[in-house]
């Protein structure tokens, strides 16, 4: 097991190098760089811009900029400097990581807690009225753009006279120390992002769970379990569900990183203090090291997420062994 983990982690290194080269190339395809926006600014003299470029290292060829960036990471753990914020990139990302992970984890918890029971119900009550309703809601959930759902929910709350809309806190609690009132305020705000961001994933999970369970319920060992007189509850939860849930666990690792960076647009609509909107601004501003670092973070999370999912699967499913 230990060997397996080490091998997997080592195999990530060449992949990450390739990913970083590719990301840097893509960013460099963008015409101009951070300095160019000042060329059109009459208040900034061209000499200043040239000086700025030199100071930021943007006058050097792309491969040297890349090598310098990599060298900084390896030798000093320095992920570079944000041009727009004039601060180290790692610090900026770290500040936003907390809320990003909180919102993403809460969303994931919410979707799994709802989707698994609904999936089990739909499979065990196939073609019942509620199964049709859930299937229908599922199709809508997959088809509605999450930013549109976010907008509709915000509108509905406002139309009802509510004010807990946009962001994660009311104004008076932003920056205030933690208290029960602040937590309550958070709960009042967070349900909109949970539903808006989570619905599509939840609909997918319900469908998968339903399909897998139906598949498993048709297997012979389920028939055997029933034939030897086990209670239906035991047959379903101990024999069928445990096997039906395994394929979902292997998807788990990709979900968190996908939630973190895949919801850029709904986070903009909902005015969330998360990574998504921040990344988008950096991209538009050509803040290259910020963009690079975020892309790399995202990739590392995805790779580590997959590894964790594989380990989790081995832990849950005794048939899987890594040697």
């Amino acid at each position, binding site marked *: 097991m230990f060997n397996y983990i080490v091998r997997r982690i080592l195999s990530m290194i060449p992949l990450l190098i390739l990913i970083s080269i590719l990301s840097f190339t893509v960013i460099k395809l*963008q015409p101009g760089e951070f300095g160019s926006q000042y060329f059109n600014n009459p208040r900034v003299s061209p000499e200043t811009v040239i000086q700025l470029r030199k100071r930021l290292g943007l006058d050097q060829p792309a491969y040297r900029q890349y090598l310098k960036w990599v060298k900084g990471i390896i030798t000093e753990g320095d992920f570079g400097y944000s041009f727009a914020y004039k601060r180290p990139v790692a610090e900026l990302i770290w500040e936003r990581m907390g809320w990003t992970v909180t919102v993403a984890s809460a969303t994931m918890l919410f979707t799994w807690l709802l989707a698994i029971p609904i999936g089990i119900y739909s499979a065990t009550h196939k073609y019942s009225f509620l199964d049709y309703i859930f299937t229908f809601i599922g199709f809508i959930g997959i088809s509605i753009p999450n*930013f549109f759902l976010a907008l509709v929910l915000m509108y509905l709350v406002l139309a009802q006279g509510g004010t807990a809309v946009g962001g994660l806190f009311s104004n008076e609690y932003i920056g205030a120390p933690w208290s029960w009132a602040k937590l309550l305020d958070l709960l009042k705000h967070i349900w909109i992002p949970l539903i808006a961001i989570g619905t599509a994933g939840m609909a997918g999970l319900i469908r998968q769970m339903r399909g897998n369970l139906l598949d498993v319920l048709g297997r012979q060992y389920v028939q055997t379990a029933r034939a030897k007189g086990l209670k239906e509850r035991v047959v379903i939860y101990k024999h069928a569900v445990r096997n039906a849930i395994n394929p979902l666990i292997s998807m788990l690792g990709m979900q968190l990183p996908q939630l973190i960076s*895949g919801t850029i647009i709904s986070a903009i609509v909902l005015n969330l203090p998360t990574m998504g909107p921040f990344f988008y601004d950096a991209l538009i501003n050509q803040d290259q090291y910020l963009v690079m670092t975020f892309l790399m973070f995202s990739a590392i999370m995805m790779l580590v997420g997959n590894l964790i999912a594989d380990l989790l699967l081995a832990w849950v499913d005794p048939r899987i062994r890594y040697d």
Partner: protein
Amino acid sequence: MHSLPSTFQVVLHQLKKNRRAKVGLYIIILILIVAIGAPLLSPAHPENINLGASLQAPSFQHWLGTDKLGRDILSRIIYGSRVSLIVGVVAVGISGIIGIILGAIAGYFGKWADHFIMRLVDILLAFPSILLAITLVAVLGASLWNVMLAIGLVSWVGYARVVRGEFLSKRNQEFVLAAKTSGASYFRIIFRHMLPNSMAPIIVMATLGMAGAIITESSLSFLGLGVQPPTPSWGQMLSDGRTIMRQAWWVSTFPGLAIMITVLAFNLLGDGLRDAMDPKLRN
């Protein structure tokens, strides 16, 4: 090739029994008619500005209301369907072609070709596709063509994996060996013999891919990275009304519903196709 028509007929027969797929197909046909007949069907020109009639609620004159510049929303939605469908078709075409060719090379030749292509797949899989699409369009510049290109470039992985898997399992089967022995070229074996036998999952993926591409396009347009105004697109219309949702709910809501219904139709059809092509579900 002789088995193909019969497979096709079986699928068609199954599809006719699938109510969901039929609903999806009918909606898609309807949207297609709307997109093609846009100049005849829309009550006004989609770019006609009339500041005197700005933000009017839905009425007999403007069925779905007007936007900030007094443009008729129904007409803009009708014309917007063209953008969504074109982006969907072209993006799916690009990703399908890239995916099929790379998947076929990987699955047929194996060894280093497979290794190389699968590394490429690993790299793409390390990013959520919307993140890559946004990055690409931001880098390449906002335009219709770049949106199609970006969506196509980030979504071929699924096709490549499916085709590779199919080819790996088929490359030592009798019909391929027979073709090889009779001296057929690689090209012919891949495109005439192996690919037609792997079409079923590709068609399902392409249909569901249309749904995904349309959502991604609307997301990019919403960010201002899509088709540039005044050409109407649903995502951009949705974004226009975003800040005035309270005064004029119709500006955002109707384009949002248009996206949802279109995506729903492709999801329903794709899902139905998958069921129809699954021998396990046949009765």
